[in-house]
């Protein structure tokens, strides 16, 4: 399921309703070509996770997602033994002898995302989401897995990947990742899309939205990003908001409807307070003017 050029991959992604910019297409293409993980960073809501989903779709691959959090350990990321079943088995064989091989065989193994991804016969896209949330011990372990694509379970042995999964790591940069991990991966920074691309994304994701409304919503969000906000809205917020506006049956923006629906674009009270009254009216006017031109 390879792609012979960046253009080809880009077309396939568009067909899968994902509109990448050229940089992201290049990163994904190179990741497949060089068999290297790609690390995606960027503000929240720019479509890092979506990129992995879209890649899985176009590759016809299974998406396996590992959501990271502090304290994530081997038992939750790789495998765990099924203790209740093991205990039952020991009880059932009370009088006979239980051999270790029996108790630590594949049927008592609970397979977690990393093992699933390594030990899979079908093509896999492995999404390691928000790696910056995991602690350093886990990062070090992950580094090992990503360099050898094999996992050792003491009781069973070493399992090597028969086909290497495509690996996408995402980070919100709550801390710097270890250099060794970064060295293993291609790095791509996803910025906010251009207005044209954002309009295109909105129209793709919100079927039936009036063209004028899509353009005004994208222009308004762009104005918001220029303000000094605690959390500037990402593409995900633009899509949510456009859906809300469309559901309300609006054909264009006005101050009243923006006021009502602002909560789907801005997620902090102080941000909502900052975009009130005159500011809001001015932004709506500017967005309408920008969309009309």
């Amino acid at each position, binding site marked *: 399921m390879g792609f012979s*050029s*960046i253009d080809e991959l880009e077309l396939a992604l568009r067909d899968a309703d994902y509109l990448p910019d*050229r*940089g992201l297409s*290049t*990163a994904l*293409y*190179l990741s497949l*070509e*060089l068999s*290297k993980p*790609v*690390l995606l*960073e960027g*503000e929240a809501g720019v479509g890092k996770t979506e990129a992995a989903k879209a890649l899985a779709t176009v590759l016809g691959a299974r998406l396996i997602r590992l959501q990271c*959090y*502090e*304290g994530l*350990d081997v*038992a939750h990321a790789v495998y*765990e*033994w099924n*203790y209740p079943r*093991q*205990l039952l088995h*020991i*009880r059932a064989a*009370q009088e006979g002898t*239980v051999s*270790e091989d029996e*108790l630590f065989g594949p049927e008592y193994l609970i397979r977690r995302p990393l093992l699933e991804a390594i030990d899979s016969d079908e093509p896999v896209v492995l999404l390691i989401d928000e790696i910056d949330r995991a*602690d*350093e*011990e886990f990062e070090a372990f992950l580094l090992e897995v990503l360099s050898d694509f094999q996992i050792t379970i003491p009781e069973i042995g070493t399992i090597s990947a028969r086909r290497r999964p495509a690996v996408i790591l995402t980070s*919100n*940069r*709550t*801390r*710097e990742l270890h*250099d060794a991990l*970064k*060295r293993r*991966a*291609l*790095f*791509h*920074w996803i910025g906010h899309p251009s207005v044209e691309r954002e309009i295109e994304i909105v129209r793709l994701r919100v079927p039936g939205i009036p063209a004028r409304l899509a353009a005004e919503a994208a222009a308004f969000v762009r104005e918001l990003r220029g303000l*000094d906000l*605690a*959390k500037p809205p990402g593409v995900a917020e633009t899509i949510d908001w456009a859906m809300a506006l469309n559901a309300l049956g609006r054909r264009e923006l006005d101050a009243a409807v923006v006021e009502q629906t602002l909560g789907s674009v801005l997620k902090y009270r102080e941000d909502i307070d900052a975009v009130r009254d005159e500011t809001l009216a001015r932004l709506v006017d500017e967005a309408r003017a920008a969309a009309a031109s």
Partner: protein
Amino acid sequence: MAAGDAIVGHVVTFGRVLREAGLEIGPGRVADALRALDAVDLARQEDVYFSLRQTLVSRHDELDLFDRAYSAWFLRAPVLPPVRQRTAAETLTRVGESPTDRLRADETDEQPGDEPLELGASGHELLRDKDFAELTGDELRRVRELIGRIARTRPQRSSRRRTADARGDRLDVRRLIRHSLRTGGDPLERPYRARKDVPRKLVVLCDVSGSMDSYARALLLFLHAVVGTGRGVEAFAFGTRLSRLTPDLATRDPDAALQRCTDAVVDWGSGTRIGASLREFNDVYGRRALSRGAIVVIVSDGWEREDPELVGREMAKLARAAYAVVWVNPLKGNPEYQPLAGGMRAALPYVDRFLPGHNLRSLEELAAVLAGIERRHAA
């Protein structure tokens, strides 16, 4: 490999240009870049750009440096090579010697290395209470070791990760089953797991403006020692703007680290814009949750040149994200000091602990406070 020799030469040299500009480019990265160029259409400039960027750069804050180097090298654009600005030799001396040093050098010919480096307990005691502003370069060198010792105490927090611990609070079922096999399935031994303590994130923001000049040297030593205690420490300097010092302080040798800091900070000894610097911190690093759950230590005399109200607003934001905020003000060492400076007054409502930081003894106090700090303000 189809990449022609000319391209190999280009990329290797470009790698060197980036390395000189301060990026970490190993041979592995250059090899990746060549493989990447081999996979894309070299006629499309955009694809060449992204291939090089994605293989050679791994940090967002290096992108700008890369872009400038790329334009200079591949597009032959008339821009200056992106070599980090070296500051004048004059600013470098600021870390190494104090104003009193300079005075004394004029008066006598005494060699600074004459005194024995070992200090008795009484010597320590004297140094301990001496104001940093009055330390000679030589004394500062002796103080260095003490500062290192103080900085080593890091506040702890309980991690979400559990490790084997006989006094733990949660059964270790995996080991329980494994051990029970030896005794025919009866769990005679009961292994436990417990949460372990890990250092709490620590963020230090140090004012290096003119009014703090005489304290900056000692505080930089303190910063260096704190960064040396391991991961989860971030250090910043601010005057008119904010500079991240963590990478510069990571060098083991304090002199080299201080040198790199003076190279990195452009506004040594200029005015203070505390509010604007805090805003920059909140916007750029706070948004990345660098301050969330962290102990934030601000070292400044609170002399805001511009807008004290902005200081208050940004302090409020900071305090909401942080676990605790500590303000260290060297002026507080003077018993008659009152926090009248506008910036200081605006900041105080959001400060959990307000401490002096003018001598060794007060740094010890700081370390003790950090080790036992509790969250005081409402979340």
